């Protein structure tokens, strides 16, 4: 685990651009139960999470792997999704599973809030774009899976083929990724005195 307080650590943790190939997952309201079914949450580590990503959707009724994008687009790192992706439970297992599978950035029409927050704390940019742009991206990836795609986090742009389009990234997420300060433990603990001060002023916290 890198330590955000030392400068090299921060440098290493800056997420300025993600380049690679894309993987499209089509559909609105894809909830975290689909991203990772609850029966795979009984773990105490994050090992093996990649296998569980979209576990049910990736299999036919007889348990054989089907042509789900997560079977077909191995090696891709930019996930392209539609509306309200990641709704449902707060489980961070969902973005963890995606990350272990290889996802390093997500572009979509919109994200459930907790899901986007969880992405941020893992250093995964979640960028939003209008439905037409997302549809175009998904079409292009499906037509030419090997074509490059790049998310420029700093300038909030996605480049694919000869096209460059603007995307949105939540301000807090943008700041955290670009400045390399998404490791909040170090940030929060640097204010320990102020924490004690706030606690002391609260009528329900016993003085210590």
């Amino acid at each position: 685990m890198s330590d955000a307080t030392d400068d090299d650590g921060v440098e290493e943790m800056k997420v300025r651009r993600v380049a690679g190939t894309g993987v499209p997952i089509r559909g609105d309201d894809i909830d975290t139960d689909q991203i990772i079914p609850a029966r795979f949450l009984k773990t105490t580590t994050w090992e093996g999470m990649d296998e569980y990503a979209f576990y049910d959707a990736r299999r036919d009724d007889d348990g054989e792997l089907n042509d789900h994008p997560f079977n077909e687009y191995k090696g891709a790192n930019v996930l392209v999704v539609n509306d309200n992706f990641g709704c449902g439970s707060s489980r961070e297992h969902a973005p963890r599973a995606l990350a272990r599978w290889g996802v390093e950035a997500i572009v979509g029409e919109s994200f459930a809030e907790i899901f986007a927050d969880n992405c941020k704390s893992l250093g995964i940019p979640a960028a939003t774009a209008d439905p037409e742009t997302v549809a175009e991206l998904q079409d292009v990836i499906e037509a030419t899976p090997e074509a490059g795609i790049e998310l420029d986090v700093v300038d909030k742009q996605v480049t694919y083929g000869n096209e460059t389009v603007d995307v949105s990234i939540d301000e807090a997420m943008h700041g955290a990724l670009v400045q390399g300060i998404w490791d909040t433990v170090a940030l929060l603990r640097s204010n320990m005195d102020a924490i004690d001060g706030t606690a002391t002023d609260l009528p329900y916290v016993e003085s210590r």
Partner: protein
Amino acid sequence: MSEGTLYDKVWDRHKVADLPNGQDQLFIGLHLIHEVTSPQPFSELRERGIEVPYPERNVATVDHIVPTRPEGRERPLADGSAEGMLTALERNTAESDIQFYGLDSDKQGITHVVAPELGLTQPGMTVVCGDSHTATHGAFGSIAFGIGTSQVRDVLASQCVAADKAAVRQIEVDGTLGPGVHSKDLILKIIAELGVDGGVGYVYEYGGEAVRDLSMEERLAVCNMSIEGGARAGYINPDETTYEFLRGREFVPEGDAFEERKAYWEAVASDDDADYDDVVRLDVDGLEPMVTWGTTPGQAVGVSDPVPAPENLPEGEREAARTAQAHTGVEPGESMAGYDIDVAFLGTCTNGRTSDFREAAAVLAGREVHPDVRALAVPGSQTVKSTLEAEGVDDVFRAAGFDWREAGCSMCLAMNDDSLEGDERCASSSNRNYVGRQGSKDGRTVLMSPAMVAAAAVEGEVTDVRDLAEVDT
């Protein structure tokens, strides 16, 4: 921007600092811990050599993975990974000096049931838990929201989270709920009206006559499902109902100290002239018991209303409605009444409290569960269970043919042995009807109130509880 609301006041009281990323650092008054989202954070702390600075502001219990049959609770648990999570939590809480209500405790249960009944949740607090239904605790007039595993780590490490302030939407609910209509129906109605993502970016403040009339337990069910409406949190301003509920509970001060604390609670309530970012008004006069017909909590109608035809819905909702109806096997144009039920499930952090079981028992008294239905009653906590047993409510359930279990999340998400099989159809008092939620990817979930679950159990099909003769609900 909102001003003068409870949300603003409580936020300000808990704000520690502005963070360089533009977020606020917020002190957390109560952190609830369970076995699923805590092992990784604790091990990360251990790796980094960090000690928990405010152990007394953290409380743990075990709920998601626990077996609900008494014989299944012998240690070690038969399911090795469940045993591993429980053992990890025992060790982690012991090493960090954190109160843990384990399987051997008569206070064990679902975090969102346990904390309110012990008086741990109080007005004017910030409450978090690695679970989206933390919104439940807002019923007391606290800021309560679910956090991800990394934030669980942050809270353990600093008793703080980095957070963005949301906008506040006031939802004024006028009118009176009729007989057989409960707070679950009210919140399902709100979600159906505003949509499952209608609350994104907002915190909901529920108010108005219909909300003020609710008991504390009913209010908890409303706030619980804020998250199903897309809102990160929901709250109700504290009032006499809140204070009377709190009086005498284990973690609530007594005597003069109670009065002092109450002064703080009153002070944080929203001002009469508070500014809101948005205001929505709703009237529940004449509201019917609500049931879901699809695979999101927003796909809900009154029990005698026709299920909408996808082509009549707004364009963006049509495809989802078609897929959902193919899954649940409902016919547009018909009402949900008469939809066959294989399983009746009563419990969860939405509707697993004493009043929920009493309401269901009023329906079940003198009746029997339909022979084609397996019926499960899972109290939200061991305290709920023992309270009901002292009243003889368990006898009503047993006599009717319900399986009467120990506390846990159970078939809400089927992380234990309680699960839907195949394409079973379940009348459920839980909060989520997503595909696969109850343990079978072909399973069908119909969300409804506890009284409606009891009616469905008896009739073997979705039934308007008000049609059952002599039910006093």
